C-alpha cells in the first residue's frame, strides 16, 4: 500500500486506499508461471485494475496476458483472462480476497505480513482487540477455514451489487464467511446457520450437495466453478470427516 491512508475496516476489510497493489505469484515445480496484479486506481470500489502476467519459459520476463493462457508453459496451470477476475473478486466490496482478519491471524513467515504487523503499523482503521480464532476442534476449524477461503467470496450475504461482468450468480442464502464477532462457537458461524441442514446433510456427506460438488470436477458439477481442475483431496477428506461428525 503506497498510501498512508489505512485500510477501512468494518467487520472485515472493505475498502483499500487508492494506490494499493496486490500481487500473487504461481510457480510449478519451482518455475514461475504467472503473476497476478490487482491495483486500486481510483477512489471508488469499482476502480480496480486486474491483470495477469505470463512468464517466459526462461523466467526472465513476464508479459501481460489479458486474454489468459491455457496450459501455460505446457503445465496444467491456466492463467485467467483479465475479465475473469471479477467473477470471484467482485463478490467482496473490498475486491481483495484473503486479506481478512481470520486469514491474517496466523504468524507470517519472515518478509511477509500478518495481522499483528498491520496493527503495529497502524494500517487498519479499526484493529481487532485480539487475533481471531476459528472455533471448533481441528476438523471443524479446518472445514470452516476451507469454506471461508474457497467459497465465501461468492457465497456471502453482503455481496455488493455491481454492474460489471460477473460470471455466475451464486446462491445468496448460503454464507460461508468467518468474521470477527461471529466466532464465539461453531454454531455462531454463518456456515452452521445457513448451510448445515441444507447443502450439508448432518452425518451424510454422500447425500450432501456441498460434498458432491467439492469432490467432483466437470462442467456445471463442481465447486468452486472456476480456477480449479483437480479435487483438493486433503480438504475433501476433512470435509467428509466434518460432515460425518455433525
Amino acid at each position, binding site marked *: 500500500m503506497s498510501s498512508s491512508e489505512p485500510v477501512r475496516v468494518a467487520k472485515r476489510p472493505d475498502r483499500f486506499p487508492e494506490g494499493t497493489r496486490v500481487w500473487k505469484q504461481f510457480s510449478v515445480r519451482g518455475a514461475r508461471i504467472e503473476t497476478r496484479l490487482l491495483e486500486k486506481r481510483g477512489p471508488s470500489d469499482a476502480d480496480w485494475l486486474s491483470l495477469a502476467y505470463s512468464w517466459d519459459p526462461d523466467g526472465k520476463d513476464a508479459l501481460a496476458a489479458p*486474454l489468459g493462457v491455457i496450459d501455460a508453459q505446457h503445465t496444467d496451470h491456466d*492463467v485467467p*483472462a483479465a475479465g475473469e477476475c471479477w467473477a470471484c473478486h467482485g463478490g467482496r466490496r473490498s475486491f481483495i480476497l484473503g486479506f481478512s482478519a481470520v486469514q491474517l491471524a496466523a504468524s507470517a513467515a519472515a518478509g511477509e505480513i500478518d495481522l499483528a504487523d498491520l496493527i503495529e503499523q497502524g494500517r487498519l482503521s479499526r484493529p481487532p482487540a485480539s487475533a481471531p480464532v476459528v472455533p471448533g476442534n481441528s476438523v471443524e476449524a479446518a472445514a470452516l477455514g476451507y469454506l471461508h477461503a474457497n467459497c465465501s467470496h461468492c457465497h456471502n450475504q453482503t455481496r455488493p451489487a455491481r454492474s460489471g*461482468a460477473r460470471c455466475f450468480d451464486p446462491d445468496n442464502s448460503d454464507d460461508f464467511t468467518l468474521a470477527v464477532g461471529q466466532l464465539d462457537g461453531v454454531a455462531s458461524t454463518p456456515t452452521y446457520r445457513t448451510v448445515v441442514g441444507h447443502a450439508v446433510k448432518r452425518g451424510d456427506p454422500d447425500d450432501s450437495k456441498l460434498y458432491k460438488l467439492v469432490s467432483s470436477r466437470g462442467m456445471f458439477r463442481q465447486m468452486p466453478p472456476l*480456477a480449479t481442475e483437480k479435487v483438493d483431496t486433503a480438504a475433501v477428506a476433512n470435509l467428509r470427516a466434518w460432515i460425518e461428525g455433525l
Partner: protein
Amino acid sequence: MNGRSALFAPLLMFATQPVLAEPSNEPGLAPGGARIEAQAHFGVATTPFDVTTLAEAKGQAVVLLAAGSYALSEPLSFELHIPVVVGSVAQPAGSYIDAAALGNPQLGARYRLMQRRSGEASLALAGAVDVGLPLASHAEDLMPNRVLAIADGVEGRGRPEWFTPGVMPITASSALRWASAAWTLETELRLPLFVRVSEADLPSATTNTRSIGLAAVASGEARYRLSRRLSLATTAQLFFDIVPSVAHVRGVSRVQDFERLSLYIHFGSRGALVVDLQTAIAGELGGAMVAGGLRGVVDF
C-alpha cells in the same frame, strides 16, 4: 388406453398415413422456383483454436443459418447462405462470456449436370461454386473468433467456409443424388479454398496465418420415407484438413468424422421440418461435441 398409449397414438396415426404426395426431395427447383431454409443447431464443443496461448475454444453455441435459393432455369440456380452464431465461450479459468458473430455469407451457383429418370427413381448430378464474402466477425479479444470456432465444432468442422474469419472462401462442390419413392441417397464432395484477406485480429506473435488454405469435406446421407409425413435419415461426413489456413499450434487430427441422425417431418410437397441430433466419434471432436436442433425448408 394408458397414458403412454394416449401419448403415442396421435403420433402413430400421423406417421402411418399413406403416401399421397411426392416428398419435397425432388432434385432441384422448377424454373422460377425459390426455396427458403432456416436452421438452428445448439451444441457444446471443444475445438482446436490456433493461438499458442489459447489452443482450444470451448463452450456452447447456437448456429443460426438463413438460406435461400432461386432457380433461374431448369439446370441453374443461385444460392445464398448467411450463418450467424451466438454462444458462450469458456475463459481459461473456467468462466463463460457470451459472444455473437457473423459467419462468412456464401453466394453460390449450382448447375445440374445430369438427370436421369427411370419410373419412380431419379438420378441427378450437380456441380456448384460458392464464394464467401469475408465478413466473418473477429476482434482483438478473439471472442468472435472463438465462438466461430465452437460453431465449426458444432457442425463437425464440416463448414469451415462459414466459420473462418479473415478469409475469402471459394468452394467447389459436386453432389450425386439418387431418389426413389422411399429412399434418397445423396453424396457430396466439397473443396473449400481459403484466400486470406486479413489477419482476423489473430496476434502475430502467437499465430501463424497462411495466405492459402484448403480443406475437403465428403458426406453422404441416406434417407428413408417412413410415411407420407415422416422420413428418417442418417448422415456421415469426413473432414480433411489439407492445408490449414492457420498453422496448428499443437498436434491436431487432420481428419474429422461427423454423424447426424435426422427426422424429417414433411408438410405436403413443399415444406419440411427436420430434427437433427449430431455428434462425432473420433478426431478432435470425439467425446467433445454433441449438438442438435432444427432445420426448416419451404419451397415456393
